[in-house]
């Protein structure tokens, strides 16, 4: 486990800093609205919200192109939006509409936009790791400098496939970046009860660099990602980044109903992490450095507010999918 000094701040120009903040805010506001709509009973299924972890998706994806691949988790809205996914198409998907990015076939846990290199959120913990190892192999064979990035949670560190991917990634020097978002909880179980040792250290025996970073500090995320992408693109193989963060919302929005008063974490803990909110931290820092003032921030909020409102209206007004789609999408091409 090693920590890096943060020099990234100086390397990012002002326009880009503001764009990072805006993208984090977009994710936050879309998800807050999703939380409200879930409570109001407007959503057909549950949603796993990414609130509190936005610096990771944004800090990583801002350095990727559409030709780079990502795979995400059940908590995948943030990665989708960070890599340039369309909020309208995402919200429509979560509403189960025909205009959804997956035509209503996947829902919240499967938002994907292949044209943007978003292979998708995934309902199986750790499943994206093997998919991105394959995408990294494809990138290596293509030789165009593309990389594959897999986001996964601390829970996925309990899946053997992480070891398998580190092994193959190291042997074949694949352009693979493994980003573990350690938010402290495997669903409703504290991470330290189910995960021994330090997740980043799992890279060590394979000769792969493993770093622990503050996932709520976008500059640490940026810097660790830049280093990992550099290694990947130079043919030096994978990197494992463990970004420590905190899940501000429950595992799933419906949890209060089925926990029936049961608790698995303290209010003090949640309050503590509120003080380390990644968006507040960046916004405060940028204001202190006079990169942005409160008027400009208000204008960003206004723009995002309109975008979010537009996305939810679009979703609500969109038509439902039709039954023919169900057989249409199973196989590519004509069936005999």
């Amino acid at each position, binding site marked *: 486990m090693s920590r890096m000094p943060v020099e990234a701040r100086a390397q990012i120009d002002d326009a880009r800093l503001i764009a990072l903040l805006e993208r984090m805010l977009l994710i936050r506001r879309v998800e807050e609205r999703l939380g409200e709509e879930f409570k109001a009973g407007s959503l057909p299924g549950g949603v796993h919200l990414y609130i509190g972890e936005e610096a990771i998706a944004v800090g990583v994806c801002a350095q990727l192109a559409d030709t780079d*691949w990502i*795979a995400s988790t059940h908590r995948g809205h943030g990665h989708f939006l960070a890599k340039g996914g369309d909020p309208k198409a995402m919200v429509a998907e979560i509403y189960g509409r025909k205009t*959804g*990015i*997956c*035509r*209503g*076939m*996947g829902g919240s846990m*499967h938002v*994907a*936009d*292949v*044209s943007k290199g978003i*292979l*998708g959120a*995934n*309902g*199986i913990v750790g*499943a994206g*790791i*093997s*998919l*991105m*190892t*394959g*995408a*990294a*192999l*494809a*990138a290596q*064979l*293509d030789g165009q400098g593309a990389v*594959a990035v897999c986001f996964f949670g601390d829970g996925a560190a309990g899946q*053997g*496939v992480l070891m*398998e*991917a580190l*092994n*193959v990634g190291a*042997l*074949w020097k694949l352009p693979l970046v493994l980003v573990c978002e350690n938010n402290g909880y495997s669903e409703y179980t504290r991470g330290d009860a189910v995960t021994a040792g330090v997740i980043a250290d799992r890279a060590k025996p394979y000769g792969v660099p493993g770093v622990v970073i503050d996932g709520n500090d976008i500059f640490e995320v940026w810097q660790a990602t830049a280093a990992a992408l550099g290694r990947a693109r130079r043919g030096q193989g994978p990197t494992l980044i463990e970004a420590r963060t905190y899940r501000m919302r429950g595992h799933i929005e419906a949890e209060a109903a089925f926990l029936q008063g049961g608790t698995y974490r303290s209010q003090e803990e949640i309050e503590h992490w509120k003080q380390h909110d990644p968006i507040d931290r960046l916004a405060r820092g940028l204001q202190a450095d006079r990169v942005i003032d409160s008027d400009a921030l208000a204008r960003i909020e206004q723009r995002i507010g309109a975008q979010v409102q537009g996305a939810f209206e679009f979703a609500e007004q969109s038509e439902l999918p039709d039954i023919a*789609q169900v057989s*249409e*999408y*199973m*196989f*590519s*091409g004509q*069936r*005999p």
Partner: protein
Amino acid sequence: MARQRIIQAVNDALIEEMARDPKVILFGEDVEIGLFGDTRSLHAKFGPARVRNTPISENLLTGMAVGAAAAGYRVIAHLMFANFIYTGFDSIANQAAKLRFMTGGQLRLPITYIAVYGGGKSIAAQHSDTPYPLLMNLGGINVVVPSSPADAKGLLKASIRNDNPTFFLQAGGRGGEQGEVPEGEYLTPLGQAEVKRGGTDATIVAIGAMLRPALRAAESLQKESGLSVEVVDPRSLVPLDEATILASVAKTGRLVVVDEARDRCSAASHIAAVVCDKGFASLRAPVKRVTVADVAMPYAPSLEKLVFPDTQRIAAAVTEVMQYGRS
């Protein structure tokens, strides 16, 4: 035409498809040396980038196939023995079979998973399963089971060119029978059954390596009882050519399905259900299944032989459907 064994026909198909399309890649355990002979010479011909040995990590390699296919490659993933798919099953069942659907058709996943299936080799229960019923039930996976060297070549080439995940299951250790195989470009479309032997009294549908004992049974019934038995090879189970099977049963009125999967929820029981549903009016006897009992494959060759469908059991089943309603 050349006389070949199945394994040689598979090797030829792989060489031809890799030469034809530089996007075809192949990986798996021990594929470089070519343990079964099917991948032999590929590593030397196409190089270490396109032909790779993997560690024994089925969980990873089944999913790697999905990721590389999504990113534009035509992937052949060799799983060695079909029992090993259980280790790598998440990526088959939850990813390969569903990602195209769940993304609303955004993806094509041209993957051919190759594995050796079935018993008869005295290598016990963990290397002798016939897991196609389970694959058939996934929905998004083609399942191909060749019975002859020519079909092995034609079906494998068609599988590799197919834009969907396809399981190509070859009968292990029983691919020794020789047959004529067309040289060069030869494709057998998925979803087209073949009537291997014409007949009018009863139909046998036999899958994969069961074709040989089924044909022997049909011949002996002809010789000994003067029965005219039609034998149909479905060649692929997904997609399944129901029309050819139903047309045969419409002619004969009697059906025996031979399948070396365990009986419960077998391909045989699915085919029986389809015929009972769509061909009930033409049936003159209950559909009989000749399958493996719901037991694990025993090691002792003497027992394995008893568990496995053979010519005698198939002939007895045909005799039984012929006698139905006559005693």
